[in-house]
């Protein structure tokens, strides 16, 4: 069993601000973390190979600094990490990202052993798109299962995987064929801490970096060129106007007087028809 986990280094979102003059996102001084969902993905992969045997490779596409994210997973005990990094990959949207990662997974399968299972996070907390996983599955023509909380069966020789998916109204149990791609929910497991041998390995190991040429990527499909979407403008959401505050003895009464004058409130609470 060869499991590939895709991780993304993201800024700690709470800290991100806009530079009001340049209208760009200020990343300086903002700490980078591994996308929380992806930590659960790494933990799941490690648990699966502990149970079923095999190896875990972790891939990330990003700038050279993303090496730190990979080292974190090496310290957790994964077998192999690969940085996919090239100036030509810059400004990639999800279409270009999924192309690049799918191409890298194909290369990895060829150079080592074929990847049977790809695990992604459900979404990255910086972009929240949740598109990268389905995009990669489609390109590789792998079966896909999103919102996975648990892998209940994994039988390599029968090419079978059974997973639980968290949906809006319940849990779906789904069987798919290997090779497959799953995206996982957050908080489904407790990502393990780094082990001492892991830390030493992470410290010593030279992280391989794969360029666009090395993975034989089509220049038209990567980075800016391969990205149909483009950000026209970023802005801080306009603040909603806060209403009055009441703190005196009659605060509750005053507040209710105001909302009882509001048509949405009357409609919801008194069942009055608006319009």
């Amino acid at each position, binding site marked *: 069993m060869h499991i590939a986990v895709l991780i993304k280094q993201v800024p700690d979102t*709470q800290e*991100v601000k806009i530079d009001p003059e340049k209208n760009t996102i200020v990343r300086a001084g903002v700490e980078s973390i591994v996308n929380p969902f992806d930590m659960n993905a790494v933990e799941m992969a490690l648990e699966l190979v502990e149970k079923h045997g095999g190896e875990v490779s972790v891939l990330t596409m990003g700038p050279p600094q993303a090496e730190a994210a990979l080292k974190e997973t090496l310290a957790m005990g994964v077998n192999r990490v690969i940085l996919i990094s090239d100036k030509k990959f810059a400004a990639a*949207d*999800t*279409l270009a990202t999924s192309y690049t990662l799918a191409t890298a997974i194909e290369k990895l399968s060829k150079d080592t052993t074929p990847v049977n299972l790809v695990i992604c996070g459900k979404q990255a907390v*910086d*972009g*929240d*798109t*949740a*598109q*990268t*996983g*389905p995009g990669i*599955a*489609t*390109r590789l023509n792998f*079966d896909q299962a*999103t*919102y996975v909380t648990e892998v209940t069966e994994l039988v390599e020789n029968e090419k079978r995987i*059974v997973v639980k998916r968290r*949906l*809006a*109204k*319940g*849990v*779906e*149990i789904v*069987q*798919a064929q290997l090779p497959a791609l799953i995206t996982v929910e957050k908080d489904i497991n407790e990502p393990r801490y780094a082990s001492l041998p892991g830390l030493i390995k992470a410290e010593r190991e030279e992280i391989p970096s794969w360029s666009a040429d090395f993975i034989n990527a089509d220049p038209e499909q990567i980075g800016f060129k391969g*990205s*149909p*979407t*483009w*950000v*026209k*403008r*970023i*802005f*801080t*959401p306009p603040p*909603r106007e*806060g*209403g*009055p*505050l*009441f*703190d005196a003895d009659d*605060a*509750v009464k005053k*507040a*209710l007087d*105001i*909302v*009882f004058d*509001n048509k949405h*409130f009357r*409609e*919801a*609470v008194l069942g009055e028809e608006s319009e």
Partner: protein
Amino acid sequence: MAENTEWKDVLVFIEVSDGKPQEVGWELLGQATRLAGKLGQKVSALIIGDNVKQFAKEAIEYGADTVYVVDDPAYKTYVTRTYNNAFCEVVKKYKPTIVLIGATPLGRDLSGAVGTVLQAGLTADCTGLDIDDKTFKLLSTRPTFGGNIMATIFCQKGQPQMSTVRPKVMKKGNPDPARKGEVIDVSVPVDPKDITVKVLEFIPDKAGAVEIEHAKIIVAGGKGVNSQEGFEQLKKLADLLGGEVAGSRPMVEAGLLPVERQVGQTGKTVVPRVFIAVGISGAIQHLVGMQNSDVIISINNDPNAPIFKVSTVGIVKRWQDALPELISDLEKRVN
């Protein structure tokens, strides 16, 4: 009017699950009508499933001029690969310039696959849609970085331009039973080889589990409440108003609230008519899940709590003092 290309009209995907069309489809038909108006083009709808042609009329009432129906028992359950094939067939054949999909779990699963096959620009989870006055391109606005920042995105190249939109963000229009439209059956046979993914079982959430995203009134508690006793009072208030109890993430972590009732970035997005926030500070991750509610009433003893900045009215008191009075006063006014 937009330039005359092969690609025109605004297509909305009408998701049918559990044999019912999802409301977000109707919400998007309202948006599609507005966008198509700006482009001088028409609105179309796409329905995929088994025994779904019956919903075409409703789609027309909500604004579709043309409804494409892929109706076949093979589409009874959702499988990414088969729905993706059907979806892409329709788009390649009828060439809509804009494709809108509800950002439901199914919609998000499907849109990434469709966008990849069509090599289309896809913007996820939009909260605002518009047409650029000069280029006539779709402008999709979405929150990013956990709601701290808004981004407006357009497609610099390629067709169609795709966006997913969260349910309940757009208001649904009124259906017009007199509207006329065309229904077109599209046959996309399913290759049995494509059905490698099988649903073995569906375990619905336990009975009584509600979907807070459908509640008209929500009474939410936060760390300021942090007690069984407090949540009993919130329940009393919710029952009085016919609403549902919800809360912030720490309350779920404390075991006072089931996770289905968490509001916020990692919980549910809710847009009720009335949201009552008790002992909730108003962290950005919470606000993104509730700030579009029509009326927000907040109780917090800290006058500087950020929740007040999004509130219609604020009561600066401890909940222990304010809630009993609120309940008794409301009892009098409601009955």
